[in-house]
C-alpha cells in the first residue's frame, strides 16, 4: 500500500482516425500522492486533455499501466467505469456542464441519484454542499439564472457530493474572469485541505502557480514535473 492515489507508468495512447494514427501520449509516468494539488499544463495538442480523460476513466489507454488508489484501471465495462467515476472522481469542467433544465440543487444531487440515495437524503446533502459554496439561496435556480462563478461553484459542489478522492478539473477557470478565477481557486484550495487530491488542467500560468506541483506536457511526453518554488520551498528537496 503506497501513498500514491494515482500512479501512471509508461502510458501510451493513440487515436486512430481512418488510416491515420495519431500518437498522443508517448510514454508518461506520473505519481500523484494522496492530498496533493497538482496542475497539468501544456499547449493545445500536447495531450493534456487526453491524459485527463484517461485519469477520469473517460477514455482507455493502449499501453502502460494506471493505478487509481492502488487499483489497476484497465479497459473495463462502462458500468464498472461509471461506478469507479462515481466513487473516486469528481469532475469540474470549463463549460461547467450543468444540466440546463435542472435546478442547482438537482444538479448537485445528481451523482447521489446514480448511487441510489433516497431523494430526501440527497437533497438535504446537496443543500449542505451548496451552503458550503455560499449558494444556499440559489438552490432552486436554474443554471441559466446563475453567473459563471456561481455555476462553477455549483459544479464543484456536485463534484464533491459523492465524496470523491480526486477532483479532476478541466480548465476550471477558463471561462471566468480573474477575480472569479481566484475565488474558484480558493475554493479548490479549501477542498484540497480536506484531504482530497486536486488535479487541474490549465494553460494559465498564474492558476498553475497556485498549485503545489506543475506537470508540463509537450508533444505527448512530460517535459517537467516541478514542485512550485513559490508555494513550498522545502518540497523541492523531496524530488
Amino acid at each position, binding site marked *: 500500500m503506497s501513498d500514491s492515489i494515482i500512479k501512471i507508468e509508461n502510458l501510451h495512447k493513440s487515436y486512430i482516425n481512418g488510416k491515420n494514427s495519431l500518437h498522443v501520449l508517448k510514454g508518461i509516468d506520473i505519481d500523484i500522492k494522496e492530498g496533493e494539488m497538482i496542475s497539468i499544463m501544456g499547449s493545445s495538442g500536447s495531450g493534456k486533455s487526453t491524459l485527463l*480523460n484517461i485519469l*477520469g476513466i*473517460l*477514455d482507455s489507454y493502449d499501453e502502460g499501466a494506471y493505478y487509481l488508489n492502488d487499483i489497476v484501471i484497465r479497459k473495463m465495462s*462502462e*458500468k464498472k467505469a*461509471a*461506478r469507479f*467515476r*462515481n*466513487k473516486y472522481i*469528481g*469532475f469540474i*469542467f470549463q463549460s461547467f*456542464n*450543468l*444540466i*440546463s*433544465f*435542472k435546478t442547482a440543487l438537482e444538479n448537485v444531487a*445528481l*451523482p447521489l*441519484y*446514480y*448511487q441510489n440515495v433516497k*431523494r430526501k437524503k440527497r437533497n438535504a446533502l446537496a443543500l449542505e454542499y451548496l451552503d458550503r459554496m455560499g449558494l444556499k439561496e440559489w438552490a432552486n435556480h436554474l443554471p441559466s439564472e446563475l453567473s459563471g462563478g456561481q455555476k462553477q461553484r455549483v459544479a464543484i459542489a*456536485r*463534484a464533491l457530493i*459523492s465524496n470523491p478522492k480526486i477532483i479532476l478539473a478541466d480548465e476550471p477557470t477558463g471561462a471566468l474572469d480573474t477575480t472569479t478565477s481566484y475565488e474558484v481557486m480558493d475554493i479548490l484550495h479549501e477542498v484540497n485541505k480536506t484531504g482530497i487530491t486536486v488535479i487541474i488542467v490549465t494553460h494559465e500560468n498564474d492558476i498553475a502557480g497556485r498549485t503545489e506541483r506543475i506537470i508540463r506536457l509537450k508533444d505527448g511526453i512530460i517535459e517537467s514535473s516541478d514542485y512550485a518554488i513559490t508555494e513550498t520551498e522545502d518540497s523541492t528537496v523531496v524530488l
Partner: protein
Amino acid sequence: MFDRDRWQEIFSAIRKNKLRSMLTAFGVFWGIFMLVVMIGSGNGLKNGVTQGMKNFATNSAFVWTNNTTVPYKGFKRGRNWHFNNRDMQAIRDQVSGLDIIAPRLSGWKLNKGENVVRGKKAAAFSVNGDYPVYRKIDPCDMVYGRYINDDDIRMKRKVCIIGERVYEVMFNKDENPVGKYLRVNGVYFQVIGVFRSKNPKINIGSNKKESIYLPFTTMQNTFNYGDRVHYFTMTAKKGVDVSKVLDKVIAVLKRQHNIAPKDEEAVGNFNLQKEIKTIGYVFLGIDILIWIVGIGTLIAGAVGVSNIMLVIIKERTKEIGIQRAIGASPLKIIGQIITESVFLTTIAGFVGLAIGTMVLKLVSIAIEQSSADSQEEMFFLNPQIGVSIAVSALLMLIVTGIIAGLIPARKAVKIKPIEALRHE
C-alpha cells in the same frame, strides 16, 4: 421504473421540445388511429353485408328451369319445360343426403296493377306459393299470427301470410290483421299471420316485405298453375356437401323430363354455400389488406419515433456525457431513453385508439339514425373493433416504443463520454 427523477426527466425532455414531441406522437397516433378506423370499417362492411343473410340456411341451393340447349330423345333444343309435383317425390326417393326440399310458386302473372285490395285500399304486391318447410330455409319471425302449416297445404285453405310492408299498407297501425280478409287478384284470402324475415337482404324474385305467401297447393288450384312448380329450394343434411346433393337433384330432374344429361343450361341452379365461400374470401382479402396497410402505417409511426429519438440523443449527447461522467451507468441511460419513447408511443397510441373508437362510434350512431329514417338497406353496420384487437394494438405499440427507443439508446451508450462532452 416509477421513481420521480426518471419521470421528471421524461417530462422535462418532452416539455422542452413540444413541437418535436407532438410530431412524433402524431406519427404513432395516426398509425393507430388509421388501424382502428380501417379495421372498424372492415368489420362494419362485413356486418352490413352478412347481417341481412346470416340466418339464411347456408347449406341451401335452388334449382329452376331454363329452355333446353341440347336435343335429346327426339326433343328439339330450345324446349320450354317445367317442374311438377311428381318431381318432388322423385327427388325425395332418389337423392340421399337431402334434408329439406320446398317447392315454390312465384306469381309473376299475378303481379299486374294493384292486385291486392282491402276495402278502399289497393296496392301491388308479389304473390308466392309456399310450403311450411320453407321457413327452415329462410327463417322469419311472426309479428302476428302463425306461419302456413301442413293443414293449410292439405286442405288447400284460402289463407295467406303477409310481409311487413303489406301489413303497413293494407292495415291501420296496430290493427290485428289475423282473421281479416284480403282480395288477391280477385280471390279473398284470410290473413293468418304477418312475417318478418330474418334475412331481409336475400330476396328471390320479389321483395319479401312486399310479398304475400299462399299455401302452395292453394295457389296451384286457385290461380291455375296445375301441378307446376317454379323452383325448388333445398338444404343438405348436416355434414353433406350441398353441391353433391345439388348434382344428384339435377340428374333426377333431367331424367324425369327427358333432358340430355349433357345439357348444362336446362336446369338453372344456385348454390348459396359456394357464394358464401366466395364472400368469405373477399372479406379475407379485405382483412389482409387492412392489416398490411395498418401495420405499415404503424411501422411508419415507429420509424418516426425512432428517428426523433435519434435526433433527441444527438441533441442531448452532452447531457448524457455529463451524466455518465458523474456516474450514470449505461443501463440507467438506456432505461431512461426507452421509458421516454414507450411513454410517448403509448400515450399517443392510446389517444389514437380512443379517438379511433370514438369516430367509429359516431359513424355507427349516424348510420343507425339514417337507416332508421329510410327504408334503404345499409351495407355498413356496427363498425367496431374487438377488445382483443384493441389490446393487441396497444401491446404492439409498447413493443414499437421499446424498439423505437432501443435503437437510439444503444447509439447513445456507444458514444464515449469524452466525445459526448466535447460535443458542442
